């Protein structure tokens, strides 16, 4: 296998394999925390911290963790870092802690983090894994910021909590509600597909390659999904 340059590893997560818009991982926090830009950026950065730490840690231990026990090991490592990040946020950013609520805990089961551990960190050296964590984290944060900008500007007439003069008079509250989130996400994915002329590997998204659980289920319950067109 050819060594990838560190720049391409970093950019990979931001553009080519953007976790949210191309790999379609971590959909739950994407939809739930993007009602405001503040919440989305906070979520993105918190997940990025956990992702970098867990990637480095798992990469360091990749020769020690026995193959058959790896998923539980990863989950414990990730849960540990989530607890640390949660305590830091609670201590220094209480406002953000209130906004994110239970979703901060749910970073533990965010498929991006487990997915990267499984797909990248357990096969690559420490530095590359750290860069992958930074790239993926930035890609996640960027996608979240993009979605929350659309939802906050149209739905609440503000950006980062600051009111926009004209938009504030014509709020479309639909966008800040649950259905608005799903709609914006669907439209964004279609937009990315149209812009890249279908080169973004959308096919991969629903098959087992993009799924962190693939190793557990051996294609059992979702083998029929592979034929998704």
């Amino acid at each position, binding site marked *: 296998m050819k060594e990838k340059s560190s720049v391409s590893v970093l950019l990979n997560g931001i553009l080519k394999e953007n976790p949210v818009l191309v790999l379609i991982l971590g959909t739950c926090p994407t939809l739930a925390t993007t009602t405001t830009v503040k919440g989305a950026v906070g979520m993105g950065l918190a997940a990025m911290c956990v992702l970098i730490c867990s990637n480095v840690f798992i990469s360091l231990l990749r020769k020690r963790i026995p193959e058959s026990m790896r998923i539980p090991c990863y989950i*414990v490592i990730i849960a540990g870092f989530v*607890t640390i990040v949660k305590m830091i946020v609670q201590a220094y950013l209480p406002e953000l802690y209130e906004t994110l609520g239970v979703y901060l805990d749910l970073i533990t089961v965010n498929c991006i983090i487990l997915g990267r551990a499984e797909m990248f960190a357990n096969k690559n050296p420490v530095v590359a894994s750290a860069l992958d964590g930074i790239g993926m984290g930035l890609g996640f944060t960027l996608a979240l910021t993009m979605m929350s900008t659309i939802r906050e500007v149209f739905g609440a007439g503000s950006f980062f909590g600051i009111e926009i003069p004209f938009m504030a008079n014509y709020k479309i509250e639909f966008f800040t509600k649950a259905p608005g989130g799903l709609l914006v996400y*669907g439209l964004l994915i279609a937009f990315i597909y149209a812009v890249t002329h279908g080169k973004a590997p959308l096919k991969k998204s629903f098959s087992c390659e993009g799924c962190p659980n693939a190793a557990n289920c051996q294609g059992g319950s979702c083998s029929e999904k592979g034929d998704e067109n």
Partner: protein
Amino acid sequence: MESFKLLIIILLSSVLVDNYVLSRFLGICPFLGVSKKIDQAVGMGVAVTVVMLLATAATWPIQKFVLDTLGLGYLQNIAFILIIATLVQILELVLKKFSPSLYKGLGVYLPLITTNCAVLGVTINNIIDGYSFIESMVSSLGCGLGFLLAMVLFSGIRSRIDDTKVPAPFRGLAVTLIAASFISLAFMGFSGIVESIFA
């Protein structure tokens, strides 16, 4: 009577109003992934409901009697995820041994549930909301049934989508998400309804 009324309210509101998939966005991955056929949707929904009930039955006492008593509240996250993972493994083994037919139906969905945020979300939310043990169990049942309902409704819609002509960029996930958005819009109609039934 009063407490019974409260239980009914908790049950109905977690099935209809605060539906975990459609308004809180927990468990979106299986919702999108395993809802292509109705039998798969039912299997996954039942498996999630069972695991949610078992997980709440295990995590609630542990939070109250172990973590809270010893002042280890900050270990909640690690403890809960380990309990859920272990439970799922045990359930899989037990089903395999004692009921191979049931295992054939539900077993394949179990490994997917370990890292399902709906299960962890339910157990943590029950603690945050300060529910008693019985209230927690009822709310987990409601969340599971809500998940099942959303999955079944959605699998019906998806089979219709398969037969329609969709513009190329929307094919696959995009149109699925937009369809989910409409169901979610329909579920928003339930808000406020549960409290007014008993008013």
